[in-house]
């Protein structure tokens, strides 16, 4: 397959292929809809390439197998959907504490509880606030197309290695299931081409033995470790914020949306612009770190924001933290697995926009 050639790929397969081409050596997973296509794709491709695929006995086992494999220095991925990601949280906390690189994919479904298998964005809090116990963060990337699923999967592995931290790829059933053309913009890396990591536990050959742990009984030591992690997170906040803008020039109302919701928002915003409404879109691509600073600066001139989410309102809290009271923040959400139509959102935005215009 030539690099620049377009091919029609399912979202979950784009994630899988990106992982394989990023030199992922181990994948551990457990069946749950709507992400089984990724697990099945990995089963096929990892066997073809002579790498490790293992269907675990639970999501808990899968994340801990990932932890073990990551400790040997290889690139590792696990994936699941919302309820399964909840089960993985303890392990993710350990991986963050032990500073191991690991890529975790969440194909979010409607919740809480068993919910349904429809596309949703209701795991935002869990994803962006660490998710498990303890004072830690995970990098969270939110792709909005199959091409981006591909590109950001590769990026996830790179960020995980660079910062020795778990990276969460947050998608949903729609992005995972849909097919779109994908271009491979990257160079394939084989696992054996990746540089050796100086902290692994693979046996103390020609060096003193070492250990990886998270238990730090001495509070002073634990405090210092927490500050160390904090400084790392600050570094990530300085360097790894990603977002995109659409029709923001001269906008009076800024829609903020990510992932699937941002696709819908794009169409709705375009319609607004065609009707001469000054509406734009800010699409955070990294949900943590969140583009607070950018939103703050935008709020200098834009006095109205609307968080549009496939949930009852979670990201809105980050938008509010971003504007710091400089602007009004509205909310429109559809939870439970409902994917709103661009026409519906257009109506909502129009109403809000007209109200703003009247009050001016």
């Amino acid at each position, binding site marked *: 397959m030539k690099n620049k050639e*377009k091919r*029609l790929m399912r979202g979950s397969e784009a994630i899988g292929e990106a992982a394989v081409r990023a030199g992922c050596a181990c994948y551990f997973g457990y069946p749950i*809809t*709507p992400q089984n296509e990724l697990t099945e794709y990995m089963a096929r491709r990892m066997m073809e390439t002579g790498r490790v695929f293992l269907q675990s006995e639970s999501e808990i086992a899968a994340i801990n197998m990932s932890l073990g494999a990551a400790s040997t220095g290889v690139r590792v991925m696990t994936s699941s959907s919302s309820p399964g990601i909840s089960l993985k949280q303890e392990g993710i906390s350990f991986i963050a504490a032990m500073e191991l690189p690991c890529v975790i994919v969440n194909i979010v479904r409607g919740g809480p509880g068993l919910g349904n*298998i429809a596309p949703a964005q209701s795991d935002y809090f869990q994803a962006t606030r660490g998710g498990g116990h303890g004072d830690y963060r995970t990098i969270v990337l939110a792709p909005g197309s199959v091409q981006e699923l591909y590109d950001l999967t590769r990026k996830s592995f790179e960020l995980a290695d660079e910062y020795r931290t778990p990276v969460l790829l947050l998608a949903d*059933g*729609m992005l995972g*299931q*849909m*097919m*779109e*053309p994908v271009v491979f913009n990257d160079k394939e890396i084989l696992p054996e081409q990746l540089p050796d990591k100086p902290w692994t536990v693979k046996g103390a050959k020609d060096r003193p033995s070492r250990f990886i742990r998270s238990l730090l009984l001495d509070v002073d030591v634990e405090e210092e470790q927490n500050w160390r992690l904090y400084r790392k997170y600050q570094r990530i906040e300085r360097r790894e914020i990603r977002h995109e803008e659409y029709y923001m020039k001269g906008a009076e109302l800024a829609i903020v949306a990510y992932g699937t919701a941002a*696709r*819908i*928002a*794009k*169409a*709705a915003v375009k319609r607004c612009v065609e009707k001469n409404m000054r509406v734009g879109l800010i699409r955070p691509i990294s949900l943590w770190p969140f583009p607070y600073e950018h939103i703050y600066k935008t709020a200098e001139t834009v006095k109205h924001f609307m968080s549009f989410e496939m949930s009852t309102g979670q990201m809105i809290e980050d938008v509010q933290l971003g504007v710091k009271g400089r602007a009004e923040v509205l909310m429109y959400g559809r939870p439970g697995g409902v*994917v709103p*139509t*661009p*026409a519906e959102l257009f109506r909502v935005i129009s109403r809000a926009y007209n109200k703003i215009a009247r009050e001016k």
Partner: protein
Amino acid sequence: MLVKTVFAGFGGQGVLLMGVCVATAAMNEDKFVTYMPSYGAEVRGGTANCTVSISTDEISSPIASSPNYVVAMNNPSLLRFQHIIKPGGYIVTNSSLVNVELGRSGVTQIQVPGSDIAEELGAMRSANMVMLGAYAAVSNVVSFQSLIDAVGEVTGKKKKELVEFNIKAIKAGHDYAKEQIKKFASIEA
């Protein structure tokens, strides 16, 4: 331009493959395209459908809220999707199996006996390819040639003879639908 099409039928009728072929053709024509299958518990009931959206611009939602075209391979598909078709849209039905009446106005129904034509050609399971040809004739959303090429690309990985047969089936469906459209045109004239 944004054109949405739903392909629907029994599991096993190859409706998902129809969608993938059309989507591939559109991709090769450098159009924006999304393909969205039904998934999960929904497909366990034995029905399957997918939506293909083709546009000259970025596509927001790959879901069919109001499709321009529906290709219905069986009765449940017609019943389920007839009411969401955009006014002025088309429903192409596999009249070998679809015998319920269309329950709405404002859309054009093109009836093509896909399963019968496929059986005459020698393989009943190619009814999906016959209907794909019919759809191409009705919609013109992708060129006939790129559809033929796409079918070769998608189904040709294993057998060359299969591709040739599929192309034959597509042409048969295409020709049949053209005749139907002509009849419509003469009635209207």
